[in-house]
């Protein structure tokens, strides 16, 4: 039996928590109280003894523990209340009186609770005081996703994930925002850590992940010092457990299909419209019969009068993809493991890819992922972990980029040229010297490879011999990323037939070079160390904890020296009373080499508290309200990043090179002279941005079935780093410096609801979340005297801007009496704009804010599912609102620069034919700088709702399964992006990436079937 009336601990407590425990200590300071000796036993509900249960009077200054037989002895004053507690059990109180000196206590286990990652530690949901949302492994791994970023979309409050580009295999790219945008600076993305080491997650396999925590408020981000201001995403990978080995195999096969592709008109329609456009421009019709619509009736020579649907000729309708994964998980007291091997293969859409001997020019992306997480209990108190993870990516593609190819496909008119006159003569014209067949099949190929490697070694030592509950930990992390590209190139010529029977040739045919030349060589690695102490202990009704950690990290980037360095301390202290009142402090003292000495380190404090009302006596036994908690927090965090290109903006930059292109060419030889120049003007006072974040929240659970949480926040970002381009006169003659000049106010709320229930064998769940964040520039690099309509202050960081369209010019008279249009020599049917500043001139000074920001203010996710006797069905719908998109691609700006036309052209303004009911300005072949510019005419509602995932599955049970070693067997089919509701249906564009399929690879729908087997 251990007795610990330990003075040291008293002092420790007094120092750490003086502010809260004073009333209890006052009572204790009256010495010479008579003590009574109490004996007893603590058992669980099966009667088994529980050891190491803390037995204390309520203020914990007298404490004892049960031994292996569950027995304890403690001396306490008469008329005290004994408090029995142990991690994992519901604490109990017993009154001490003269009649009752022996106790037999039964402790009931606590409900298992999710452990949240919060900064450098885990907390239970019930103990959380900050705003954190979590995505668990189950939510992530169901669908066939190639990118972990995409897998997060729609699944947590406060998180917005939007694709930046179409889904070209291996080139997925997303914008991730936590609580929208909080800064005008270009660095708006959250800080992402995988097992406490900073890294990107695009190449991870989703099955590596145990949980994802989204740290949203200031208090949870303060620990991340100069990088926490944009929020933090913490990823925890799966680890082993003590128990029988678990083997899981996953196989998924699928097909990809573009969500939207533009529908261009055929030659006859195109030429008819083109001729009309020429007339509108007051231009004479070309005498060339190519511009005669009747030549496209199908009877003419297709080499002279082509009618080509370029998308159909060069894109397959679908492309396959497949994914296989094998996982092992298990362990013993001594060692525990998790291992994953996975393989992914995705093909692209191009046709005509096997024209070449020895290599294929289709896009093909494959990736191997491996991960091994090992934990070894070297001694009873020392845990050593080693995590090894890596990915290998190979991308094969034609030696023409997808952007190049899709730009060509979308700008080639159907009658521009034949694909080829003969096998050796590809079509081309002076305007379209590129031919898609040439681009796909005759430019050689390119193979990009990337290898990522993560190593993390960690040791955790329990320091019970110093004091119970104290642990020390240290970890070293490495993250390497190597990219290497190989390229074999050849070139092709295109030919244009002339009326005299000759051909004009563009470009040259050249054979593929024998050797491959290397491109895109990159090497980046990060080294990271952290180590520190943690303390966690329950003293009766008082739960205390604290941590202190030192960290440093360095990132090395090839060709970008010297390395980026950061270091700092962070830590915190938490206290709870009786699991009812929680109070947390945290801080970081953090430095980055982005700033000059003296402006380098920042102190970021945070405080947060929670009141777990459902643990109060009046609600304790209420089964309807099974959980109710109020939270509030305040915290500060920083943002030290401007962009990778402007390092050391605090000091002046000078460059000098011998015989470089920074010099000048003198003489008649083609040789550069020496050159030297001054870079951006320095700002020695430059420092990090700081955000001051307030958050309040409530978490409710009803009947343990319906949970609901709500958070409201105000984030105020100051010292936003901006280049002073709008306030430095150009006569300065140098690039304007950066300064901490802006501020952004970001406000919003999030709500999430989960309902889970079952009716007999029918289980169902419903999860919904809604997030709203509206930011407003409160101060920026703007000069006084800027007219209101041009001011950005007061608007969102990504507010769309442009001219205000009021209709069409009706006729010449209308043009003459309207304000002078300085944008273009307008004609009737052109878009008319409002003279916003009233100077009687229409020019760019009349631009105003239009619609909503380009990044949505509202993000919604809704998922639901049912399973019944092995059958299951579930779906996820995500939606975005408060978003305006600007349409300016060749599928919308028809005939521009002799470009293509879609059916939109049939709504075009035409004098006397379609004036008031026109849905499109007059057709023109010219680059009409009045019509084709940023204006409300092309700003469209960018809200959309998408069925992100729909899945149907069946899990086998039955006797035959029991005869095999298979524990679980599930087959399923799912579809992604199957269905979209949006405001762009007239334009046939993907609402998420409006240029997808036009200036780059399309966005994709997916259909998959899958098999999961667990042994």
């Amino acid at each position, binding site marked *: 039996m251990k007795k610990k009336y330990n003075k040291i601990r008293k002092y420790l407590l007094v120092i750490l928590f003086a502010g809260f425990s004073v009333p209890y200590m006052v009572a204790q300071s009256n010495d010479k109280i008579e003590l009574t000796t109490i004996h007893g036993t603590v058992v669980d509900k099966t009667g088994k003894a529980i050891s190491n249960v803390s037995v204390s009077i309520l203020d914990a200054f007298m404490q004892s523990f049960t031994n292996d037989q569950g027995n304890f002895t403690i001396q306490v004053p008469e008329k005290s209340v004994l408090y029995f507690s142990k991690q994992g059990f519901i604490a109990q109180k017993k009154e001490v009186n003269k009649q009752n000196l022996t106790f037999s206590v039964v402790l009931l286990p606590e409900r298992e609770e999710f452990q949240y990652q919060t900064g450098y530690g885990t907390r239970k949901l019930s103990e959380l005081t900050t705003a954190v949302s979590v995505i668990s492994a189950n939510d992530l791994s169901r669908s066939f996703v190639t990118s972990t970023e995409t897998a997060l979309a729609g699944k947590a409050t406060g998180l917005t994930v939007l694709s930046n580009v179409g889904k070209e295999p291996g080139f997925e790219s997303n914008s991730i925002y936590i609580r929208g945008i909080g800064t005008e600076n270009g660095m708006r993305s959250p800080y992402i850590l995988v097992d406490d080491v900073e890294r990107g997650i695009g190449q991870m396999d989703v099955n590596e992940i145990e949980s994802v925590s989204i740290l949203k408020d200031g208090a949870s981000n303060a620990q991340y010092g100069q990088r926490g201001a944009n929020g933090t995403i913490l990823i925890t990978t799966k680890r082993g457990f003590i128990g029988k080995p678990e083997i899981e195999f996953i196989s998924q096969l699928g097909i990809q299909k573009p969500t939207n592709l533009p529908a261009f008109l055929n030659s006859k329609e195109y030429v008819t419209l083109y001729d009309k456009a020429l007339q509108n421009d007051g231009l004479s019709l070309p005498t060339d019969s190519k511009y005669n619509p009747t030549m496209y009736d199908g009877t003419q020579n297709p080499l002279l009068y082509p009618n080509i649907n370029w998308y159909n000729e060069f894109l397959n309708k679908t492309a396959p993809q497949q994914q296989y994964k094998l996982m092992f998980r298990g362990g013993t007291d001594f060692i525990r493991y998790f291992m994953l091997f996975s393989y992914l293969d995705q093909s692209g859409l191009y046709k005509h890819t096997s024209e070449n001997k020895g290599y294929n020019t289709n896009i093909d992306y494959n990736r191997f992922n491996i991960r091994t997480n090992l934990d070894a209990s070297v001694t009873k108190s020392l845990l050593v972990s080693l995590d090894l993870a890596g990915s290998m990516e190979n991308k094969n593609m034609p030696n023409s980029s997808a952007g190049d190819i899709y730009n060509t496909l979308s700008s080639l008119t159907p009658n521009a040229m034949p694909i080829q006159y003969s096998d050796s003569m590809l079509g081309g014209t002076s305007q379209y010297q590129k031919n898609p067949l040439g681009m796909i099949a005759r430019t050689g190929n390119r193979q990009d490879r990337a290898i990522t490697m993560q190593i993390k070694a960690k040791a955790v030592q329990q320091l019970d011999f110093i004091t119970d509950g104290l642990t020390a930990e240290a970890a070293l992390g490495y993250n390497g990323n190597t990219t290497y590209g190989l390229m074999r190139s050849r070139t092709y010529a295109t030919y244009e037939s002339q009326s005299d029977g000759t051909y004009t040739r563009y470009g040259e045919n050249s054979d593929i070079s024998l050797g491959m030349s290397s491109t895109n060589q990159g090497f980046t690695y990060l080294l990271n160390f952290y180590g520190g102490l943690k303390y966690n202990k329950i003293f009766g009704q008082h739960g205390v904890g604290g941590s202190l950690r030192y960290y440093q990290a360095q990132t090395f980037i090839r060709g970008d020296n010297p390395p980026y*360095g950061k270091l700092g301390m962070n830590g915190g202290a938490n206290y709870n009373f009786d699991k009812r009142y929680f109070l947390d402090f945290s801080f970081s003292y953090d430095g980055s080499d982005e700033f000059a000495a003296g402006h380098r380190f920042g102190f970021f404090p945070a405080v947060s508290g929670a009141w777990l009302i459902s643990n109060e006596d009046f609600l304790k036994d209420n089964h309807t309200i099974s959980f109710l908690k109020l939270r509030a927090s305040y915290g500060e965090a920083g943002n030290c990043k401007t962009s990778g290109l402007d390092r050391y903006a605090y000091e002046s930059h000078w460059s000098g090179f011998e015989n470089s292109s920074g010099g000048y060419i003198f003489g008649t030889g083609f040789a550069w002279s020496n050159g030297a120049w001054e870079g951006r003007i320095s700002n020695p006072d430059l420092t990090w941005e700081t955000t001051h974040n307030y958050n309040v929240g409530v978490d409710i659970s009803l009947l343990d079935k319906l949970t609901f949480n709500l958070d409201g926040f105000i984030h105020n970002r100051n010292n936003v780093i901006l280049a002073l381009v709008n306030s430095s006169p150009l006569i300065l003659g140098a690039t304007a410096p950066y300064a901490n000049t802006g501020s952004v106010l970001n406000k919003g709320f999030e709500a999430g609801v989960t309902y889970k229930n079952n009716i007999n064998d029918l289980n169902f769940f419903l999860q919904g979340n809604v997030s709203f964040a509206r930011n407003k520039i409160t101060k920026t690099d703007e000069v006084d005297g800027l007219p209101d309509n041009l001011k950005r202050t007061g608007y969102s960081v990504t507010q769309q801007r442009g001219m205000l369209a009021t209709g069409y010019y009706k006729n010449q008279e209308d043009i003459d009496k309207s304000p002078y249009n300085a944008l273009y020599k307008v004609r009737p049917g052109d878009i008319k704009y409002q003279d916003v500043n009233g100077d009687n001139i229409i020019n760019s000074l009349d631009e105003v804010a239009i619609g909503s920001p380009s990044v949505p203010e509202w993000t919604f996710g809704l998922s639901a599912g049912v399973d019944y006797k092995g059958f299951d069905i579930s779906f996820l719908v995500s939606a975005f609102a408060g978003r305006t998109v600007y349409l300016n691609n060749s599928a919308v700006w028809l005939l521009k620069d002799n470009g293509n036309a879609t059916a939109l052209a049939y709504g075009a303004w035409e004098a006397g034919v379609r004036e008031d009911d026109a849905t499109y300005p007059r057709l023109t072949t010219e680059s009409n700088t009045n019509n084709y510019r940023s204006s409300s005419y092309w700003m469209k509602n960018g809200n959309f709702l998408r069925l992100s995932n729909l899945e149907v599955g069946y899990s086998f049970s039955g006797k035959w399964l029991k005869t095999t070693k298979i524990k679980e067997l599930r087959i399923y089919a799912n579809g992604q992006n199957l269905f979209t509701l949006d405001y762009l249906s007239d334009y046939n564009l993907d609402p998420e990436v409006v240029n997808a399929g036009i200036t780059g690879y399309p966005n994709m729908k997916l259909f998959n079937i899958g098999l999961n087997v667990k042994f």
Partner: protein
Amino acid sequence: MKRITIILTIFLLFITGCISLDKDVDTNLTKDAVFSDERYASGFLNSAYREIINGYNRIDNAMFACASDEAICSNSASSVHAFNNGAINQAYNPEADVWKNMYTGIRKTNMFLGELNNTIKTAGLIDKNSISIANYKRMKGEAYFLRAYYHFELAKRWGNIQLVDTVLTEESSLAVKQSTFTEAIRFIVKDCDTAMVYLQNPLLAKSQPITVDNYGRATTASAIALKSRALLYLASPWNNSVEDKKLWKDAADVAIAFINSVNGSSNLIALDPAVFSAAMPTISYISIPYDKEVLFATGYDNRNDIEINNLPISFSGKGYTNPTQELIDCFDPIKGKSIDPMNPYANRDRRFNLYFYFNGQKPLTTRTDTVFTYVGGKDGLGRSSTATKTGYYMRKFTNFSLNLSKGETSRRAWIHFRFAEILLNYCEAQNEYLGSSDDDIVSDATIYDQLNKLRTRGGVATYATGSLTKGKMRQAIHKERRVELAFEEHRFWDVRRWKEGTLYFNGTIHGMQISKNTDGKYSYAVIGVENRVYSPKMDWYPIPYTELLKNPKLKQNPLW
């Protein structure tokens, strides 16, 4: 267990000492390092040349000539049309970058001049030996010339500019006062005079030869040429409404002194007769050696964008620059001949064939390719979106013999000053200086002499001394300027400084519609091609709106 703790602690301490946030290797040069290193100190001056304007396709792929009545641009997408349709205003100007770039160049020259007496000197770079002394003397002259050049490019555009002769800070840049055009030209002339003292003088070829590898650097001749043009612009009607004859005299004196000194020297600078040699068209009009007629030009560059943008469409070009009928009509017949309206392009000034691609022209005698701009011809009107709209393409500067599909390039420099201009500067200034009425007969033989040099080279009739009145002489000089310096970015400014914008740059611009008749002959009809807008306020550009906002003390130009 204690051992483990000790190990952990040691480990912790060890790692803690490993990084510090101070850079261990300074990969960044400092200002002192730049100006105390021979390579970089001189390299800094070299880099100061980078802001010199290069006129090839510089306005959104169009030649600046398309902003005047010399040509129209067939590329409807180019922003060059803004100069002709009245779209330029304080918020929008395709030349807005010039404001920024020129001041960038000025900062570099001021920085170099400042360091010349500071770090460069104290580092001992100048006084090493007689060669370095001579080099830095030359560089000092170059810096003064460049500063004058950059200010001049600003002054001719915006008139009331800010003169900067120190390295500015953000604060001091708000305190620089706005000068008048006259003040600006005085400043420029002063810098030119200073530059001349230090620059290498090609007029003294024996003592100071310009080595081939220094071609492209400013010389005394460059500084004189700039001074000559600056004084001519100062004396011109746009700034000289009181008709102060002294200004014209100053301009004439500088020009004639230069002409006389050239005539008396080793003849390095002269009108280059090789321009019209048989071999010339195969390279390009502009490939004149720096030391012949060229007084200042940009560096020599390998390029073919000039051809890609401007060759007729059937020659793999885009044919963007289409000379106007107005310009075509300025070219006289060769001496003793007249123009046949049924065959209008024969017997023209020798410059005609070198400046234009026209219907029926065989640009190279060695090849059979013919340009056909008649309606329906392979280069003809409406043949493609960028086919000629006037019936002509610009030939000057283009190298017809390049194989563009092979990506061939040729060497090109953009000439800013050449000797022919000095002759014209003199004629104009002297003609304006002499005589009181436009009806006075011009009897000064020097004017006729200089003008006739150019006409003789072009093969057209010369003017006999005493044959023209002052007014007629003015017309003759203006026309000769228009012909000789076509496409070289003179016309835009000449018309402005003569205050003739509403006359030439307003209204319809014409081209020639050529039809091929059934008998194989052509018929010609002048057609209107573009309607243009000009008003007197456009003589000067409006000061950029954003700059007015940043510095409230800055005043907008009149009428804007």
